[in-house]
């Protein structure tokens, strides 16, 4: 039997069949045993019923992207599976476990040449008191992956502890039955032994990581209006902010949410809201207010397919233009993008730190893929980025809230500070904050707000730059993982690729990118848009010193490492 560094599994079922639970449990079992993994759900917009699949990739190394195709597909049933189209790719090496009573496997599976083995999961479950077919599926998949039964039973019992002994017994019996049913099946491969870790690993979603990062960065207030796929950030923050003396307020709409966080921050409490494209569109006016009045805030946009309501449950990178250019007037602000589940923590913490330090709004562009994926990761390091605002205290004499300082950052008086009374204003204002329509004041304050961002030293965190090849792959956000994997495969073909992924999208860093591109002979821009927004952004703000090609596609299908690898090898 062969050994693989990485194995990918899809668990398919109609809504309610428990496919997502099975996928989640498999990730928990594997990560408890020391493997890395990434789990993502794919489902339609309906709350119950419809199609659902858990997509899981387990590996001995950290995992930041889905596979090109799946090694194992377990179909608890296939009732609505055709709606996935080509999202769940099978190949001739794929093993498919199918319940013959669960309908016909879709064409994507039958035409792939995959080997299909039938197991009557539903009937086996019926033979167990309170048995569920998804626990049979869990047993089957666990055995095929090479887990020992006790590696599976212990974490599941812990996970189901609050459901009572009957539920645990039913699940154990189901898992054991699945284990037995898979006994004679040759999967042909097995996961290589996991690498031990020094630290305690974490299992969390990108949205949870974003929320924790914000608290680490000093955020103590959040305003919430629910929207897919950002709601989990707010739901995690609600109880956890309360634990650290903060609070989350549910807003009546996104217009209220953004203004609530401006009010909180004006009062001295660092604040965040999280939304998706439609909500960001509504918030844009007030983000301009935060720019003009110099109020630090963090706005997380977990991007989904657009325009309009688009595809709420699927990922895309199409809010880039809105985040960068959406504000009216000349309104410099921060735009950042995390690159993986783990990086969601760092980037939101950094965003909170930068917003506070620079007294400016920061938009964080996460996306549905990393936001709603769960990953087993190394514990992210504690970094020193904790928001520290330049405050005006012990004020004597006339206070100038918007005094022209050499670095553009002026001391902010927090309400309650004697002598610091001023009116924060969206109107063009003087150094004292008094409204004016004078040309000199307008220019001075425009310069001030531009300079405080442009003169700040963002350090090496502005981007991740890996490799030294003369083909540069420039990408951003959650595509970075697939791009790195593609670069790794290209290295095996002796094509040397460097991957450049800016984490800081605004303000732009032309000198740093020029340095990162030193010696590059070809540039491949990779993004998940229909119109090539990122490519246009690069063209507008950077010198690209070599021939450029694009590889871009809108959602909902994720862009895989295999596709990027092909785009590299096709460019001869």
């Amino acid at each position, binding site marked *: 039997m062969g050994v693989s560094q990485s194995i990918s599994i899809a668990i398919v079922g109609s809504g309610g069949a428990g496919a997502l639970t099975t996928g989640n449990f498999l990730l928990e079992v594997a990560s408890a045993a020391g493997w890395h993994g990434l789990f993502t759900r794919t489902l339609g917009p309906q709350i119950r019923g419809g199609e659902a699949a858990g997509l899981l990739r387990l590996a001995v190394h950290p995992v930041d992207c889905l596979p090109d195709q799946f090694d194992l597909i377990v179909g608890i049933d296939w009732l609505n599976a055709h709606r996935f189209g080509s999202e769940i790719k099978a190949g001739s090496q794929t093993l498919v476990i199918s319940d013959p009573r669960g309908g016909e496997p879709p064409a994507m599976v039958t035409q792939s040449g995959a080997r299909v083995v039938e197991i009557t999961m539903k009937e086996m479950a019926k033979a167990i008191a309170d048995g569920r077919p998804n626990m049979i599926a869990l047993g089957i998949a666990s055995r095929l992956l090479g887990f020992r039964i006790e590696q599976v039973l212990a974490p599941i019992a812990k996970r189901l502890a609050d459901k009572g002994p009957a539920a645990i017994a039913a699940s154990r019996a189901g898992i054991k039955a699945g284990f037995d049913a898979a006994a004679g099946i040759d999967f042909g491969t097995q996961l290589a032994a996991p690498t031990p870790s020094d630290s305690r690993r974490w299992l969390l979603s990108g949205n949870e990581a974003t929320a924790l990062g914000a608290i680490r960065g000093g955020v103590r207030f959040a305003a919430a209006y629910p929207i897919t796929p950002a709601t989990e950030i707010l739901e995690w923050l609600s109880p956890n902010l309360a634990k650290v003396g903060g609070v989350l307020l549910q807003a009546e709409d996104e217009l209220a949410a953004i203004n609530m966080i401006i*009010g*909180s921050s004006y009062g001295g409490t660092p604040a965040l809201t999280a939304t998706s494209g439609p909500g960001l569109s509504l918030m844009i006016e007030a983000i301009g207010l935060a720019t003009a009045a110099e109020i630090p805030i963090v706005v997380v946009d977990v991007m989904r397919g657009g325009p309009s309501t688009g595809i709420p449950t699927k990922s895309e990178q199409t809010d880039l233009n809105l985040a960068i250019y959406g504000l009216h007037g000349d309104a410099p602000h921060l735009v950042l993008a995390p690159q993986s589940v783990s990086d969601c923590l760092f980037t939101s913490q950094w965003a909170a730190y930068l917003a506070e330090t620079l007294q400016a709004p920061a938009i964080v562009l996460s996306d549905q893929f990393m936001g709603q994926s769960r990953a087993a990761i190394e514990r992210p390091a504690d970094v020193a980025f904790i928001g520290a605002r330049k405050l005006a205290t012990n004020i004597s004499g006339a206070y100038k809230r918007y005094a022209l300082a050499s670095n553009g950052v002026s001391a902010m008086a927090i309400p309650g500070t004697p002598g610091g009374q001023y009116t*924060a204003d969206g109107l063009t204002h003087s150094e004292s904050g008094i*409204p004016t329509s004078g040309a000199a004041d307008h220019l001075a304050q425009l310069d001030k707000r531009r300079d405080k961002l442009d003169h700040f030293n963002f350090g090496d965190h502005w981007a991740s730059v890996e490799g030294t090849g003369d083909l540069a792959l420039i990408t951003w956000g959650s595509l970075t993982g697939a791009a790195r994997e593609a670069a790794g495969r290209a290295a095996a073909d002796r094509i040397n690729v460097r991957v450049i992924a800016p984490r800081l999208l605004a303000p732009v860093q032309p000198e740093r990118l020029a340095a990162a591109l030193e010696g590059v002979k070809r540039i491949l821009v990779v993004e998940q848009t229909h119109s090539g927004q990122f490519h246009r952004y690069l063209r507008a703000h950077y010198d690209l010193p070599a021939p450029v090609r694009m590889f871009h596609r809108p959602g909902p299908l994720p862009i895989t490492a295999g596709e990027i690898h092909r785009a590299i090898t096709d460019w001869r």
Partner: protein
Amino acid sequence: MSSLGTRLTCKPADYKSDLKPIWCPGCGDYHVLMSFTRAFAQLGLPPEKIAVISGIGCSSRIPAYTNCYGFHGVHGRSLALAAGLKVTRPDLTVVVASGDGDGYSIGGNHFLHACRRNIDMTYVVMDNRIYGMTKGQPSPTTEPEFDTALTPGGSGVRPFHPLVVALASGANFIARCFSGETNETAEVLAEAIKHPGFSFVEILSPCVTFRPDEKAWKGQVRPASVAATNDQGKAARRLMTDDGFNVGILYHGDRPPFQPAVGASDTDLSELEKDFEL
């Protein structure tokens, strides 16, 4: 209002900035500003512990004319901004200033939810039944037959009744004032600020430029003939049937304010990570 240890001896002038208002001569909002500073002085609040929050419009210019902390934000969102400020800074006295366009039209939804949420703040709407800053368009309180360039011959749309809307949405303190009666208005504002929870004060404030007819309000307003009720049913009937010129505190309930616990915490952030540890 936040509780204060010491009561200061203050004069209204201590709460005025030296900025000259942009309002037209004779505008009712000058009187509202006087009532604000009188109420603050009467309560002896330190100016730095007061935040005056507003949106956009003539009335929303008021924060900068006070010597308090102020926020002149975007159109219609002052209540939301004030909510974020007050829940995180319960020590401050928060007063929100708005107008009939800012508060009832673009900001209408926030009005409903501020009444319902009952955060301890005072909401003052200077109602002149017109958009003044944009030079005379009808607002949600303008009479249907009032002729404007935007609505020649009148909008034909019935005005809404802000006090009834406030009552139905759960507001706990509802009052109406006339800007010209600065002493009475200051008294009501002081009561509204002291009221724990959301208090709503509608101030009839004439627009002398686009609604010179409103100068007649002076002769039309009268103190409400009966005392404030705490009976919602009675209040609804009174508000629905009055002619819009009864002034004073009209409804005064006792629903407790909404204020989550905030402040310093001993919890180490590593506690939060336990959710994620394998």
